[in-house]
């Protein structure tokens, strides 16, 4: 069971919301914990026992670390064990997913990375101990963030004040965000994924200039609506269940620099690697070679987050090269020229990066790059023409919503005219519920 199912939208979520709202205040987090474990049980029944044992073991480890907080050697040994154990879980799930393609490794990634961050913070005294098991479960495995994140640090986990936590406005607001995110995913990302598949099949037979460019644009849109959709869903569910989760994705293709792109694209994951890897490796005399090595490492890790595959690693290196060039040479120039041009530069670089990102067969992105510049290929094939003719509406709607205009308009309304904002939110939700249900039947 994923978010994009009738079971989740019309059975699991309403039941969870009712349970959460009727539960006494003291038990609300226990309800969220139980619902989160229930979600894992439904969505990955084959791994449920493992995840439950994993979370219990991590809770016991956190208690052991707390009990031995003053004993440096034991504390350090527990930290090393916790990191090694979680790293092993990440590797096992990622590799088995790559080999079998059976299930998404994201739940394991989110739980394990969050746990690593927690143990490091706790070790350094930057995080407090979770006194109750249910709070620990909510922190590690809140169901709203299991699909794509965000990754949260213990000190960033913000429970809403009780006055907001249990208000109808918050539930409605949270549902609005969730429905909006689900709409992006179901109505746009999934059809775009199918279109990308068709283009890939068509390009594999006979690639053309327009076919290669179109595939790049379609894949970029698909990634945008997928990650942006899951970000909205996670934040919406967070608000429904009394939490304020951080933003994970903010119009990355409109960034003024590639460094900024990395900060806006899967931002909590980038932030996580920056904090726990980059900052640890950096010393006071931060030399140029060390900066280069660290930047490449962080970018590669950001790529590997999506899977241990060669195209994600190459994508990370490609992004790192531009981040390094910017930091060492280009930033002075970028600051002098109008922001429109810097955005165009970033847009071009990051869109090209999506060709590498999407290339499941190593080396196919070279074929795509050659085709994009018309080397030994026709301008357009009948296959591409046909695919375009069948998807004009999807491409137009996708292009419109990929720009920040609509989002800016909604934010403007929220600040200037709450009544109009509420009306638009209701109408948007109603339309999206209709479209989502129509797609899920």
């Amino acid at each position: 069971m994923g978010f994009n199912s009738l079971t989740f939208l019309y059975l699991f979520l309403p039941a969870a919301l009712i349970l959460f709202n009727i539960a006494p205040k003291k038990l609300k987090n226990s309800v969220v914990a139980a619902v989160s474990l229930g979600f894992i049980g439904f969505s990955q029944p084959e791994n449920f026992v493992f995840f439950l044992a994993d979370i219990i073991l991590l809770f016991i480890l956190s208690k052991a670390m707390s009990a031995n907080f003053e004993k440096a050697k034991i504390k350090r040994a527990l930290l090393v064990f916790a990191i090694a154990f979680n790293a092993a879980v990440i590797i096992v799930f990622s590799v088995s997913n790559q080999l079998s393609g059976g299930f998404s490794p994201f739940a394991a990634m989110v739980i394990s990375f969050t746990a690593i961050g927690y143990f490091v913070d706790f070790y350094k005294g930057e995080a407090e101990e979770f006194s109750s098991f249910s709070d620990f479960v909510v922190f590690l495995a809140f169901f709203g963030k299991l699909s794509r994140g965000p990754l949260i640090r213990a000190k960033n986990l913000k429970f809403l004040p009780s006055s907001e936590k249990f208000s109808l406005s918050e539930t409605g607001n949270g549902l609005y965000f969730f429905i909006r995110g689900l709409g992006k995913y179901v109505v746009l990302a999934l059809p775009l994924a199918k279109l990308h598949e068709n283009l890939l099949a068509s390009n594999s037979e006979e690639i053309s200039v327009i076919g290669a460019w179109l595939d790049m644009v379609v894949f970029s849109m698909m990634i945008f609506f997928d990650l942006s959709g899951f970000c909205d869903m996670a934040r919406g569910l967070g608000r429904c269940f009394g939490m304020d989760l951080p933003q994970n994705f903010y119009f990355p293709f409109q960034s003024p620099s590639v460094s900024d792109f990395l900060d806006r694209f899967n931002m909590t994951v980038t932030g996580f690697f920056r904090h726990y890897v980059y900052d640890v490796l950096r010393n006071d005399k931060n030399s140029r070679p060390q900066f280069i090595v660290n930047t490449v490492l962080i970018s590669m890790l950001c790529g590997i987050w999506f899977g241990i595959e060669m195209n994600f690693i190459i994508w990370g290196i490609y992004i790192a090269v531009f981040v390094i060039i910017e930091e060492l040479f280009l930033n002075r120039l970028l600051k002098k020229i109008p922001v429109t041009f810097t955005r165009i530069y970033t847009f071009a670089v990051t869109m090209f990066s999506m060709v590498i990102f999407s290339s499941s067969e190593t080396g196919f992105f070279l074929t795509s790059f050659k085709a994009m510049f018309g080397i030994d290929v026709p301008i357009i094939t009948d296959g591409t023409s046909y695919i375009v003719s069948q998807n004009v509406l999807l491409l137009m709607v996708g292009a419109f919503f990929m720009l920040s205009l609509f989002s800016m308009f909604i934010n403007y309304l929220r600040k200037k005219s709450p009544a109009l904002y509420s009306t638009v939110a209701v109408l948007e939700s109603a339309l999206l519920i209709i479209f989502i249900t129509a797609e899920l039947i």
Partner: protein
Amino acid sequence: MKKLAAFLIVAMVLTMSTAMLKNIFSAEKPFLEELSFEEIEHTLSENVPFREEFSGLMDTIRYFSGVRHFEDIYIGSEGSLLLDIKKPTSRIFSSAKNYILGFSEKNQIRPYVMLIPSASVILQQEIDNFSGKDIYNQRNMINNMYSEFEGKVRTTDIYQTLYDHRGEYIFYHTENLPTSLGGYYIYGELCNRLGIEQNKMDSFSAIYAAHGFYGSLATDFLKQYSSPDFISFYEHEKNKNVILEHRKNDGSVRISESLFVFNENNFTDKTDMIFGGISPVMEITSPESIGERKSILIFGDESAKSWLPFLVTNFERITFVELNLAEEKLLSRISVSDYDHVLFAYSTSAFVSGIDFEKLEFIG
């Protein structure tokens, strides 16, 4: 967010949820056959209020934006729904070749092979230009398959014949099968190849058996863009005393004295009015067949409903085998040496979906 707006958004989700549950619990059948995510999702999907309106909504939007290809079906300009035939894997080619040639060698025979192209390629002019080019080239596929046999079988090319008659009602609009008229043209080519006399069309009397029905390709949404079908039987004087035996895997035999069933209410799939549907093995004996009293063993699929009734006039005994349905016990009773001819006749759509040719090993 204003409280009223928040209330309306929450109410929308809860109302949909409640309406679904109400539908589920008011239904007579049990809520769930088994407790699995797929079962729950399916049950909910079946009980969405205004389901028909919802299910057609996105397709309607896509249709008006120019889309004419839904799942695997093209909407033709003349009211036909044309199933898209995908490129078969090389394994399907090699498996078909190896099993058929192995079977021929074992039984010391040189069988006939006929692949029947689908409507999506014969009626290509009904699909717009770009998608027409996108359609898998079945002509090449058939030629490639035939060349794989390296002259060890006798192949029958019916592509050109069907193409020459593409303006006639040779394929159902809403079913991926040739009509009886299409079947007659297939029969004509088959007669030429088998070296038997073809009965002229005017020696058959046409009976219109079912009108205005929609076949399996016509979903609720696609019905509005397709034309309904009709079924006609072509009956020959000499076919009136035929005996048709349907043999099932459990050993049961159903006997009929006609190739056609006239009560259309008995069938959801109206094309099953021919033979009363296809069985794992069908034995047709025709005491008054024309010409030499010969027999033929045919391996085929549903498309035989179109052309096989015509062939009955030419053979005293026909055994038709649907390899995907028949099991070992039934197949082991068949002996190739009892027949004068052996024919493999498949539609390209059945062929690319995969035929259980390995079961040929069970035949004596």
